[in-house]
């Protein structure tokens, strides 16, 4: 028998007003792991987090923490730290009172509270703000107070609901690093919700990608990027978004584009570009070719031709918006390599073992 996981979500289901929001969720989390719940808006991430904290009851399934069933444990006995999206700090208390709230509830003595407070204030660089009212500190500071308040009770599990979404872009990048550093330092098991794939990629040990109440794919960030299970995952992870081109297979060759402007790709060439070998005896049909913007390169001997519709200079990188084979394709290249101008025609090709093949339902075939 395998060791019981630290946290285990088993067959959890939930619906609101007969609309299912979570369908048979199963998640195992190891101790000390940083798991990111990623998914589009409304896919049920917050709902799952709230079920973990006991703020909402699930209709089906159970939550096991360290082998104990939490179903009958009320929120206040769960020892779970929660950082809310809008922080939910107590407006009538000072920073100090907010942070020490959980310790006072636990009736810890004054000395203990003072020491704890000093440590956490230090860790989150909140020194000097202790006596301020919540309305008198900035958004970034509020975010850290919320984190401090959740961490100071030394919860078994830390839940973060989009903790960065209310910060401006610059602050977000630094807080991102900060949270991961603290998490690793304290070794606290953490589940963070986000719908920002960059946050998910940079912060998580593991990403659980959700869609419409189901887990689409779960694994380390790299794996989700390099080896997506289906079209949804490939489109959700990676920026700019992956290009999907309709293609037709007639049993021997692939065709891109329509009858007036089309190009034929032999099966051998295609197998060379596809990440994995397509199934034997692939039936003749219409398919979708998934091409990441970074899987293309300009090559004078490239067999494909495209016209540049638009150039997006992002500093180090440049995104070329190409018109080719009746589709718009985005190609990402190093800005130094970009000598082209709008309306130029450029030859290009694909990197080896970098393309995906999906059927029309979005299942990945290669």
């Amino acid at each position, binding site marked *: 028998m395998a060791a019981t996981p630290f946290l285990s979500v088993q067959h959890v289901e939930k619906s609101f007003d007969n609309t299912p929001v979570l369908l048979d969720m199963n998640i195992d989390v190891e101790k000390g792991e940083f798991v990111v719940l990623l998914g589009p808006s409304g896919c049920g991430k917050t709902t799952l987090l*709230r079920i973990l*904290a*006991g*703020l909402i009851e699930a209709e089906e399934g159970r939550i096991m923490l360290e082998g104990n069933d939490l179903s009958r444990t*009320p*929120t*206040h*006995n*769960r*020892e*779970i*730290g*929660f950082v*809310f*999206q*809008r922080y*939910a*700090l*107590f*407006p*009538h208390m000072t920073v100090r009172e907010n942070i020490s*709230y*959980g310790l006072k*509830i*636990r009736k810890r003595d004054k000395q203990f509270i003072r020491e704890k407070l000093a440590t956490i204030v230090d860790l989150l660089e909140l020194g000097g703000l202790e006596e301020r009212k919540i309305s008198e500190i900035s958004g970034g500071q509020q975010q850290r107070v919320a984190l401090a*308040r*959740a961490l100071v*009770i030394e919860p078994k599990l830390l839940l973060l609901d989009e903790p960065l979404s209310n910060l401006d872009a610059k602050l977000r990048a630094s807080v991102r690093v900060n949270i991961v550093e603290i998490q690793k330092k304290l070794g606290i098991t953490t589940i963070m919700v986000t719908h920002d794939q960059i946050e998910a990629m940079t912060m998580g040990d593991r990403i659980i990608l959700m869609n419409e109440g189901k887990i689409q794919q779960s694994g380390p960030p790299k794996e989700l990027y390099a080896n997506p299970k289906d079209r949804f995952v490939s489109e959700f992870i990676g920026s700019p978004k992956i290009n999907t081109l309709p293609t037709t297979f007639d049993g021997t060759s692939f065709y891109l584009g329509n009858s007036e402007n089309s190009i034929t790709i032999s099966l051998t060439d295609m197998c060379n570009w596809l990440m994995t070998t397509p199934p034997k005896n692939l039936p003749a049909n219409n398919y979708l070719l998934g091409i990441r913007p970074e899987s293309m390169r300009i090559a004078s001997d490239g067999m494909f031709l495209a016209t540049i519709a638009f150039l997006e200079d992002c500093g180090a990188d440049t995104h070329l918006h190409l018109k080719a084979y009746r589709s718009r394709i985005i190609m990402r290249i190093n800005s130094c390599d970009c000598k082209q101008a709008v309306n130029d025609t450029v030859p290009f090709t694909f990197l080896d073992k970098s393309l995906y093949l999906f059927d029309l339902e979005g299942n990945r075939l290669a």
Partner: protein
Amino acid sequence: MWKHVNRVLSWLILLFMLAPIIIIFLNSFNSSRFFSFPPDGFTLEWYRRFLENNEYRKAIGISTELAFSAVILALSVGIPSAYALFKWDSSKRSILQAVFLSPLMLPGIVWAIGLIQYYSMMGLLGSFIGLVCAHAIIIIPYVIRLVTASLCYLDEDTEHAARTLGATPVKTFFSVTLPAIKPGIIISGIFGFMISFTDVVIATFIAGSKYITYPVRMYVELRTEGLDPLAVAVSAAIMFVIIIIALLAEKSLSWSKYL
């Protein structure tokens, strides 16, 4: 131009609205018994007599006690109801809310005619507890309305945060919810106090002869003996207190936004 016309008009209308109060103040210092205008001279005689007058002191005492009890009763049953109804996801919620707000819509005098018969059947006519309950009924709508309004300003996640930090539901209510709805409670308490303290209609119907509140006493006197300078001084003093409380409530809680 139009702006100035409107401004002048507005001041005149305000003067009209406040005229009785102003006159009460002026006349309370008028040395003539007969409310001559302009005043005959300045005197504190009426206030001195007020301080010596046991009847009025007693009536004011009864009114205060009554208003205080009615507010306490209204708050202690009104706050839990407002809170529970606010948190209740049910279509029955609006029905119950409508029930609790109905005293605002149904005329008090009609109710009072029913109440006098009911109280006489129950032996409550003229009793203090009967008065307290009746006044609580007219205060509860304000408690429900104002507490609900301040619950709308409360971020529910602060309650959830308290729960995750280890607070039981009861502890959460007292440490997070209650401080957030404090303005609604204080304002409805003050407002309710004033309603009860100044009520004539309900009190004349059911008060009987033992617990004669101060406005009932004034009403009876005004109807039977006409205007008494002593009553004017009492009114002026009470009005003064009411104005101070109202201005303080505005200054510290911006209460006019809630009313």
